[in-house]
């Protein structure tokens, strides 16, 4: 705008302002203030804002499981055990839900298979999979094992969590383990209206003692006979922890050992490793090794996942090798055989491992680690 016009405009504006002040300026001001007040209060529209509503869009545990094809056998089991109504209630619950595959592994393939089971024990088994609280993976410290939470059967569940991203480009490993059963990242932390659900790949198994675990499975009859003969059976009924690597009857048959041979063994003639190689005075699930990783050293047998001296036969180690699949092995502690195992075995399939008892864990293996003739005490 040209400067002269600007000056004229300004003069006009000043004149107008002076006029308005003169003509009852107070009145105008009051009106303005009132108007402003009205606008001001009008702006405060007090609407009830719901910042957080417990969503009713989430389904409850019972409905979620019922609507999930991969959990149909778990649903059938819950139905058979009359637990569905409980899972509709407020909770909160944490559920470790085994997939259909996990039930198939145990020979349960259709819903009707549960009909023949005792309702009471089925109910106990299922309550064993539930915690009376919400437990998200973030509640468990990363890269730890043995976080104990009491479940709805009032037994402790041992929870491990591996959460690791070794480098910026590496894939995130986030595995959640309960008593050795694994829940992968995609199926963890499923939010329910009344809790949280983690899908696991194995049915959790529980017996009061290790003796009960072994007695409940006919395939370990020869192993039980060996333990009894060698005087190691009683420990498995006592409270002290033992992790048992149990060879099945097939393993004994492969080695040509019969029940009769075992009955005729003279325990005094054999080194303790004949039976104790299978017993660790410890308590762990196979998944614990995946979380803690290998021991320092080199080679399959030099940097194993685990290695411990055999109690009562300390020149020998029992270990679990670093190769995949992890192999249980026995090794002599002194050179020249220090890095060559005397004998190796293999684990039975995943569903035959991680049998939890109050005094330890049982893992099935499919080969013997010590043959009787190898354990003979040599007379000098």
């Amino acid at each position, binding site marked *: 705008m040209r400067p002269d016009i600007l000056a004229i405009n300004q003069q006009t504006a000043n004149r107008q302002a002076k006029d308005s002040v003169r003509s009852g300026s107070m009145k105008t001001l009051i009106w303005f203030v009132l108007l402003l007040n009205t606008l001001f209060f009008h702006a405060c529209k007090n609407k009830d804002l719901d910042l957080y509503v417990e969503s009713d869009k989430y389904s409850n545990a019972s409905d979620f499981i019922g609507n999930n094809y991969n959990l149909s056998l778990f649903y059938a089991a819950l139905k058979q055990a009359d637990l569905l109504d409980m899972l509709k209630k407020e909770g909160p619950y944490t559920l470790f839900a085994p997939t259909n595959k996990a039930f198939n592994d145990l020979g349960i393939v259709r819903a009707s298979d549960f009909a023949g089971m005792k309702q009471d024990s089925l109910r106990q088994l299922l309550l064993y999979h539930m915690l009376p609280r919400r437990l998200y993976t973030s509640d468990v410290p990363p890269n*730890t094992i043995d976080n104990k939470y009491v479940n709805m059967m009032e037994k402790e569940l041992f929870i491990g969590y591996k959460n690791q991203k070794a480098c910026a480009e590496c894939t995130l490993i986030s595995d959640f383990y309960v008593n050795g059963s694994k829940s992968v990242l995609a199926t963890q932390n499923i939010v329910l209206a009344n809790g949280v659900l983690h899908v696991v790949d194995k049915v959790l198994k529980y017996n009061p003692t290790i003796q009960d675990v072994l007695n409940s499975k006919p395939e370990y009859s020869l192993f039980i006979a060996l333990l009894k003969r060698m005087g190691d059976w009683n420990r498995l009924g006592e409270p002290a922890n033992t992790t048992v690597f149990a060879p099945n009857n097939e393993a004994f048959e492969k080695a040509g050992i019969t029940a009769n041979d075992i009955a005729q063994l003279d325990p005094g003639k054999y080194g303790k490793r004949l039976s104790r190689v299978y017993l660790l005075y410890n308590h762990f699930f196979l998944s614990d*090794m995946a979380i803690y990783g290998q*021991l320092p050293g080199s080679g399959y047998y030099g940097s194993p996942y685990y290695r411990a001296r055999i109690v009562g036969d300390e020149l020998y180690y029992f270990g679990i090798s670093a190769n995949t699949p992890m192999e249980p092995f026995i090794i002599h502690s002194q050179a020249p055989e220090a890095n060559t195992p005397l004998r190796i075995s293999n684990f039975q399939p995943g569903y035959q491992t991680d049998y939890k008892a109050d005094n330890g864990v049982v893992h099935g293996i499919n080969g013997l680690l010590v043959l009787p003739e190898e354990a003979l005490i040599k007379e000098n």
Partner: protein
Amino acid sequence: MKHKILNCPIFAVIALSFVFCVASCTKTEYRTVEDPAYIRVFNNLTYTLTLDNKEEAQPFFCMFIDPEFDASGKPIGGKAIGDFLDKRNIYAAPNAAHAGLSTSKYNPEYPGKELVPTAPILNGFDLTNWAQVPAGKRRFLFMARPISNVPFAQLPDEQQRKVFLDTIIDLSSREVYTLHILQKDFKTKENGLYVRQETFHKQAFSDTLTYVNFYNLSAKGFLQADLSQKLPVPGTTRSLRYGLLDTMNIFITHIQPSVNAAGATVQQRIPNFSYQYAGQMQRNIDAPKVTPYYGFPIFLQDKNKIYSDTWQYIQFFAPAIDPRTAVSYLEPPSVPGGLTEPAVKDGTFGYILMDHTQYAPSYYLNTFFPGLTVNVHSGTANPRTFGVVNSIEVVNGNAFLTTVQRKYPQPIY
């Protein structure tokens, strides 16, 4: 007239600045501690959890001094809280090395990164690494906590209830204490708090000498334990890995780097300052007591220089072994290759090298440490070497160096 004054712009400016002036006054409340004692806390538990020792607590703590508890018995506060107390560093520097520099929450010592009132300069010694706590009987509670960035109070409830150590100690007014969380028994895995009342600020130290003393704070039965049981400790000081005998003689050899005719740096020992007997180190974790300090001169570089590049080669020998006559040990500055030396395994021999050029802080526990002197920019000299007071603590196969320095003139740029 009045009207005029009110309309005067200068008046307005003055009035406004007066308003601003009053508004900007804030009262700073300095935290003071009545009748303080000075403490520094180290966590000496360096073990990692494996399947064999998984029942032990995670050696990562939240420390409460005079804790307060909520109705359910969970500690929620106290006179002081030191969260994220991690295992200690190989080297505890004399300056406030942690203040404002670190991006990690993990604290290698207390006070370390905690913003608490620290101790003043006592008798010339800079005690910024010691925290003030009220003197008297104080309850120290160490809660084991998982290793994570989550503050203790925000952890899930069940993880705030793992008591690791709960003890009461008596702190005297204006005394300096070093506290160590130690393993007391290697077999039973019993742990305890070791409290040492320091005396360096009361001793008549010369400022042209540098001083060092030695402690063996290893657990009972560590040396005697099976070698395989000592293995899971990652990257421990190689030469001390299997432990030392309860009584060891200490010999210090001073090494002087020089440049030879070909232009290469060679490390040579100073003949008259080789194998200097520096006293005896005895294992003692039950009756904390300051051990005698051994002093040696700062070997300044030739004429008119105030900087030293000598370093110290420290050897530990079981009594009766004399390094001047024993031929089976390499002569400093040579380093024995690996652990083939039989004596390393039976605890009759060990060595550490206080060579700052080989010291790597990122390499967690190794044989090399920064020197026993401090080189800094002070006044117009850059660098200048100062004598300091050091403590070397041998704990279960690891060695740790703690250095305390005197106040020195600030640098002039």
